[in-house]
């Protein structure tokens, strides 16, 4: 009997642990958006120094494209077995709140002027910090702090330099954690 009891406790633990394996595969969207934002910002930076009439072209093309790819990716994910964890709820409302704040900041660009990008970087650090804490994934926590620090520093610079600092912020808070998540996912698979 005692053997069976031990087996059952081990089995309960095994089942509960299986429900914790979900977040290791969320690196794709982090990387997609990370690279798109970096490419758009760098393109913006280089086109500012040319006579090209639309230096913001990268944002206009890549952001909608990113949205479409994200939707296709999410619809494929939807075909997978469905589970909603308590963490999902926290993440959903945290990022929804950030989405609303981001929309307000971008819509207020006219009034905020040069303060827009620094505020975006600082604001972005908050949901990233929470995500890192909830997932117990330290690179995201460090990346969030990095994004906030870079955001604060970038208040003192002109728009073109802010674009480069935005790339640095994305590198530490998106790309590095995104690649580390991917590596962790591959390890978990093996």
């Amino acid at each position, binding site marked *: 009997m005692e053997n069976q009891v031990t087996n059952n406790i081990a089995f309960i633990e095994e089942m509960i642990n299986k429900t914790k394996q979900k977040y290791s595969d969320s690196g794709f969207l982090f990387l997609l958006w990370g690279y798109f934002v970096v490419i758009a910002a760098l393109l913006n930076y280089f086109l500012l120094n040319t006579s090209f009439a639309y230096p913001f072209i990268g944002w206009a093309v890549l952001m909608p494209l990113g949205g479409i790819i994200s939707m296709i990716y999410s619809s494929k994910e*939807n075909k997978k*077995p*469905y589970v909603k964890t308590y963490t999902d709820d926290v993440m959903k409302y945290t990022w929804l709140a950030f989405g609303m704040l981001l929309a307000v900041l971008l819509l207020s660009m006219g009034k905020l002027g040069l303060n827009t990008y620094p505020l975006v970087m600082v604001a972005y650090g908050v949901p990233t910090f929470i995500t890192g804490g909830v997932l117990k994934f330290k690179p995201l926590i460090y990346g969030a702090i990095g994004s906030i620090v870079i955001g604060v520093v970038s208040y003192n610079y002109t728009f073109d330099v802010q674009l480069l600092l935005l790339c640095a912020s994305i590198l530490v808070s998106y790309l590095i954690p995104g690649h580390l998540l991917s590596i962790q996912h591959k390890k978990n698979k093996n």
Partner: protein
Amino acid sequence: MLKDLDPLLHSQLRLGIISILISVVEADFLYIKEKTNASAGNISVQLEKLSQANYISIEKTFKGKKPQTICRITEQGKEAFRRYVEDLKSYF
């Protein structure tokens, strides 16, 4: 004194289903199948038993055009699981 274990939870598949559902808000049939590695028929039978005991609630819905069965643990189910784990501990 050794306690009688809840017979409804003392079957490995039902215990597995409840262990999964206690850790999440809700999960569909496919998720439970993937995590337990049990056959669809067996899972259906065990879900029905757990539902009849009011340990879980089952919602039949659609995901696009495909039918989807979403399961959630009830308060009664949480209490039964908590008691079951307590009873297991009394064996040590």
